[in-house]
């Protein structure tokens, strides 16, 4: 399937990020081409140090490439001003990080409504939406809790609610289950699954196979470059029973 350049939510061409020079030159991201279609969940997987986090930062305007182009919903963003980039990050992109990055002194609801307030929404509308997002992630009864009063899985779900606060074009998640135990991971998996079926465009970089396996499409990254691509939707191959030792 080919993505028309006008319809890709996220698009990169020849994207590069280099550090150092000569013998010390590191190509953290090396000539990456990428298209993420609307409503698609894409996972980029690779060992630590393969450049996947750097890639996410370049796509989300948290870092500048040393070469190539980044497009967001048809708009080229790699060369825009710092101010314009900051506005894009606030309004068009939802970020989810491994370490949650919640404000410790704010309640769950205050964390979630913050991006909406920064975008100029009225306090009342922002709060109403924050409560509804917390309900959506299953934490309606934790709105007044501080992050320190929540489990790791609950904090990550608050962070995901916050990422959705401005109805972003795309949610970029960096190792979202990296700090979670298996039960909390399952909660986050369910949540991403429901976002996926609601049509939210998602890009996840991870080395956790469980979250990668929820994606529509999976790209493997090594040494800064894409080396393999798999479409996970459509025709199931193995029989689950055989995996459990049951014979037909």
């Amino acid at each position, binding site marked *: 399937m080919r993505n028309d350049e006008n319809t890709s939510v996220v698009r990169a061409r020849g994207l590069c990020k280099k550090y150092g020079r000569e013998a010390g030159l590191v190509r953290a991201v090396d000539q990456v081409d990428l298209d993420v279609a609307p409503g698609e969940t894409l996972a980029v997987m690779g*060992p630590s140090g393969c450049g996947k986090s750097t890639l996410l930062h370049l796509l989300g305007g948290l870092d500048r490439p040393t070469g190539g182009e980044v497009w967001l919903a048809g708009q080229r963003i790699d060369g825009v001003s710092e101010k314009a980039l900051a506005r894009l990050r606030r309004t068009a992109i939802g970020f989810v990080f491994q370490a949650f990055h919640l404000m410790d002194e704010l309640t769950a609801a205050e964390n979630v409504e913050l991006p909406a307030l920064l975008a100029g929404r009225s306090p009342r509308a922002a709060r109403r939406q924050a409560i509804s997002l917390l309900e959506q992630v299953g934490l309606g009864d934790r709105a007044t809790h501080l992050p320190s009063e929540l489990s790791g899985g609950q904090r990550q779900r608050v962070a995901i609610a916050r990422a959705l606060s401005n109805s972003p074009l795309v949610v970029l998640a960096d190792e979202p289950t990296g700090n979670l135990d298996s039960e909390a991971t399952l909660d986050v998996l369910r949540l991403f699954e429901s976002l996926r079926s609601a049509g939210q465009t998602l890009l996840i970089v991870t080395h956790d196979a*469980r979250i*990668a*396996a929820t994606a529509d499409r999976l790209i*493997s990254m*090594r040494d800064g470059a894409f080396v393999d691509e*798999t479409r996970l939707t459509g025709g*199931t191959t193995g029989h689950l029973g055989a995996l459990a030792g049951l*014979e037909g």
Partner: protein
Amino acid sequence: MQQEVVLALLAKEPSHGYQLRARLAQALGPLGDEMNAGQIYVTLARLEKAGLVTAERSAGLPDRPDRKMYALTPAGQQRVGDWLTEVSWPRPDLAEFHLKLVAAAAARLADPLAIVDAQRRELLRRLRDAQRAAMAEPERSDAGLLLEGIVLRLQADLRWLEACERNWTGRRSGT
């Protein structure tokens, strides 16, 4: 179907075949769907022949296997007891894949990393299927626990593939 499994299903009380099937379906959830429904009767007939099970036809009903009431004989009970205390070990099949990588690299027939990538694609598809099935199970269901086992095994296989990837990447770049 393993004979001991059918015997153990009978250990609770004498049962009809369809009751055993229901217990199996409960424990296996979606994994049970792939099983042939007639298989349990084939196994029961073998167990009867081996003297581990008795089968009594219900009076006045046609002679169909699902009308029979099956029960363990003392020998059958003994077998179930032995089976429960037996330690069985899963048979992982790692050597074949490992040797495939070694042979492919030695003979320069294929890139070991391409083989690793292909294997990972397949494992991830299975992981996705198992995970979808696990997420669809209600909390604390027997079948959910079995599916979690499959998910964990697949994750272990994928972690080993990561180690293979690191190793063969290192060899290729000569470090």
